[in-house]
């Protein structure tokens, strides 16, 4: 697939997300009238989005809602994971040593007692 098609597919995505200006939409419409490949891709995208909207319980949705992650919740769980990881690693290192450890630490040693 050529770079120009990649560009127009991104434009189609943006259009279906409602993120394009009127001038950009006009430019896209002009291209779609001339490009059967891109118009077919747009039709497929629309079918997929309709199917997803129906499965989400909204048969009349024009835009499929994207899952939203709140910034605060994300930061909170990242901090929790970091603290649990550090504490677990600290405890495990104290109990069993590092991953493998130095070879000499596990080799036998003879001392005069």
């Amino acid at each position, binding site marked *: 697939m050529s770079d120009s098609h990649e560009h127009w597919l991104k434009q189609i995505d943006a259009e279906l997300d409602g993120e394009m200006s009127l001038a950009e939409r006009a430019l896209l419409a002009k291209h779609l009238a001339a490009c059967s490949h891109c118009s077919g891709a747009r039709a497929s995208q629309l079918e997929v989005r309709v199917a997803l909207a129906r499965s989400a319980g909204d048969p009349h949705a024009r835009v499929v809602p994207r899952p939203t992650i709140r910034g605060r919740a994300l930061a909170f769980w990242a901090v929790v994971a970091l603290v649990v990881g550090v504490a677990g690693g600290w405890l495990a290192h104290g109990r069993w040593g590092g991953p493998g450890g130095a070879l000499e630490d596990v080799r*036998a040693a003879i001392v005069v007692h």
Partner: protein
Amino acid sequence: MRRSSSISVSSVFAIVALLWAGQGPGTRVTYRVRVVQDGDLELARGSVSGPAGTDLRFALRDDTAEVEALFQIVPEGDTVLVSGEFFTKRRLGRSRRGLGLWEQDTYRRSVRLAWGDTARVHLFGRPRPGTPPSEGLWVHVVLVRGFSGGEGRPAQELEVLDSTMDIVLEAVVRPRRAHVVMNLVRGDTVSGPRGFDLVPEAPARRVQLAMAGRTTTLEIGLARPEPAKSARDRVLALDADVVCLRIATPEVAQPVGVVCGRLNDVARRLPLPGGDTLVATFAWPAGR
């Protein structure tokens, strides 16, 4: 006259000194061994003794680790150099197919100590800083020497007090001589057995075996086996009591064959060019 008596007295003193140094044939070496866990829990105790040159083979195994070692000593005056060749396996985990994954290691450790001192062998490494000094598992080895009193055989004893681990103590002695018994066999006819005390690496000797009124002359010599192929066998000297009998006929310069085996009285067969079969068994020589 006076001169010769002083020489003989000095010779006697030299021999006695040599014996005391632990290198004479009348000296007996004893390894007293205790396996201890966490300072006061004794897992096993035992001893291995034998003539000078006797080594100690030690093994400790459980589901997660195996430590095998061969301890050798080199006496030097009032001290002795103890060397241990270690072969260890540690379990790291399991493979995706559920089989155990093991880490294998071979290394050497040595320490010098006085006769009667205790060498503490930390089998799984020195205690980590911060852990109590009594924590862990180690082996106490005490080396004692004395006169053999005519006893040339190695001896070993082991009392295992905790059966959760497999513990082995063995005396390892390389034979200075071997008793070889040979027969000739052809079909149902067997010659009378002939026994020889042979010294490894000594020059070959000519022997005659008679069977059914016919005499077969062979040249036989004893040799040590080739070094073991696997690292574990080499480290633990598992072939210490193996000897090889080289057989040649006086007419042919090349040896007819070589028969190798342990000194365990098991018959080993070697077809000879004339159609006879030589049967040889190896055993420890009778005590003198």
